[in-house]
């Protein structure tokens, strides 16, 4: 069985973008047998995390298939670019969190697939903070945290084991 690794590189210093800005990057798959790759899907999407069930929407989607007779060597850099939308902005709330990411899903022969993500921030909304229960509203107003948003670098590491929908993500042998 092949060893594989997908590398994603986003253009930009801190993986933080503003609405309307162009998100561009590249990826490549390190694999011994590139013919084993049936298709690769590139998605730029947001998903929620927190107490509620997950919501997700895809902003950009591209499927590069090797099944139509045209072989694309995924070991070579593949570029992608898309203009980011106005919303929803990345948000780190108390029970609702919104994350943006570039997700690369590689489909191998024999029906296996694996996922790699690169998280980035859209906008700079500060972290949400719960209003203290029983706070007197006639006094100091309760406000969202005024500090700088959490650095996207904290969670910008590509994750090869993240399969939010429960699909199988096989590890390399």
């Amino acid at each position, binding site marked *: 069985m092949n060893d594989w690794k997908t590398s994603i590189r986003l253009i930009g210093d801190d993986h933080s973008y503003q609405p309307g800005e162009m998100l561009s990057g590249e990826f490549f798959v390190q694999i011994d047998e590139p013919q084993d790759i049936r298709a690769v899907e590139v998605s730029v999407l947001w998903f929620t995390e927190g107490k509620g*069930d997950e919501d997700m929407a895809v902003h950009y989607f591209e499927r590069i298939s090797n099944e139509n007779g045209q072989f694309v060597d995924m070991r070579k850099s593949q570029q992608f670019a898309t203009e980011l939308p106005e*919303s*929803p902005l990345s948000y780190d709330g108390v029970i609702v969190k919104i994350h943006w990411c570039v997700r690369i899903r590689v489909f191998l022969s024999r029906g296996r697939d694996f996922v790699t993500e690169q998280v980035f921030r859209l906008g700079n909304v500060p972290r949400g903070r719960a209003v*203290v*229960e029983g706070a007197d*509203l*006639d006094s100091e107003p309760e406000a969202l945290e005024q500090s700088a948003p959490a650095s996207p670098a904290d969670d910008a590491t590509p994750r090869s084991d993240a399969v939010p929908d429960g699909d199988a993500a096989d590890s390399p042998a």
Partner: protein
Amino acid sequence: MRTLSRLRRRKFRFRFHRKKRGDRVSGSARLATMGETLFFGACLLLGAVTLGLIVFWYVLPQWRVNRYFLETTCRVLVEPGVEKREEMETTLYQPTIRYEYAVDHMRYVGDRYDLLDTRYAERDKAEAVSAAFTIDETYPCWYDPLEPGIAVLSRGSLLAYWALLLPVAFLAIGVGGLGYTVWQFSASRERRAAIVQKATGKELFEDASEAGKFPSIPGNADVTNSPGTTLAFRLPIISRAGWHLFAMTLACLIWNVTVAFFLFLAIRKFVTGDADLVFLVAMVPFFASGIWLFVNLGRQFWRSSGIGTTRIEISDHPLRPGMEYDLFIAQTGKMHLENLDVTLLCEEEATYRQGTNTITDTEAVFCEQVFSQSEIIMEPSQPYQEHCRLRIPASGMHSFQGLNNSISWKLSVYACVARRPDHTRHFSVVVVPAVSEGAQA
């Protein structure tokens, strides 16, 4: 002193057991897919087999009668009657009509009314069929040209075709379910989402509409469709009170009418000297519940009718973080308002499934008083009106609407009325992201 808890909502449904949420997935996705496949496969098989049987036994013969049987005339030989039959411990009635007809100079005798030899559960229906025929009279009949010995007096009903509906429904469930399962299995989640978004008109790249400009943010048509009298827009009220009142009234009526019926029976027995004390005692808790429902309904009416209308108008909409807006507050009614507060509230709302229950949790992440006034004496002819300023915090998150998660902004009007219960009304506003520096330039 007023606390946030008055403004918060927490929707909670009673559940008999609590399941561990853990890593959110409480079951095996593969097992679920297998179960779904088996279920839909069984539906498909059942539908296909039943459809085949119905078509073979009922629809095809019926179709042949209508399509290929030839018409001729027949003469009834004996007085038509009804024959009683016992089939599978059920009594059925079949009209018996014996008749003769000729095909190619050959004489045939038939006794079928229709091809299916229909039997009736009620004798009246069978008699009605046989009563339509008289001995020695001639009637049209239809015979099979391939087998002239088979003839019918009626070319049949549409029942055979209606019988197709059931297996077709099973087939549709099976085919649709299996198709959906295959779709779930064969396409990645991102691909499915992209296709669904495209199919539902939410284009991936460009959408010129307001909703397309701010994806996942609720539209503001509810506000902009309602112009204000003083300021640009009148804010819509978030109200469930009307439905609560309707549901309570309905429940109260049904309960009390039922209790009254049984009470009437109990009293009648008592009056006729046949008093059933156990029954009377058993009625007491039901009667008490009915009284409690009446009292509660009265309190709800009292609460909702005592306060006049509250109107909030705003100078612009949708709102943006860091911006200030004019606010106009109007309250009608004849009352003594001990306190009238308007609070800007931002809440996160998360819905999740726990076993078979759906639970929604709410968490306030911003709460600021924008207006407060005490001791207001109001007259019906003179509604209370006031202007104030509303500022959305620069660090505020915009409104967000997902299937299971949302972030909503609203203005909560809290009225503390003398000699009446406190009252809170909510008005929704939509906050969109602030204009970025790049866009401003």
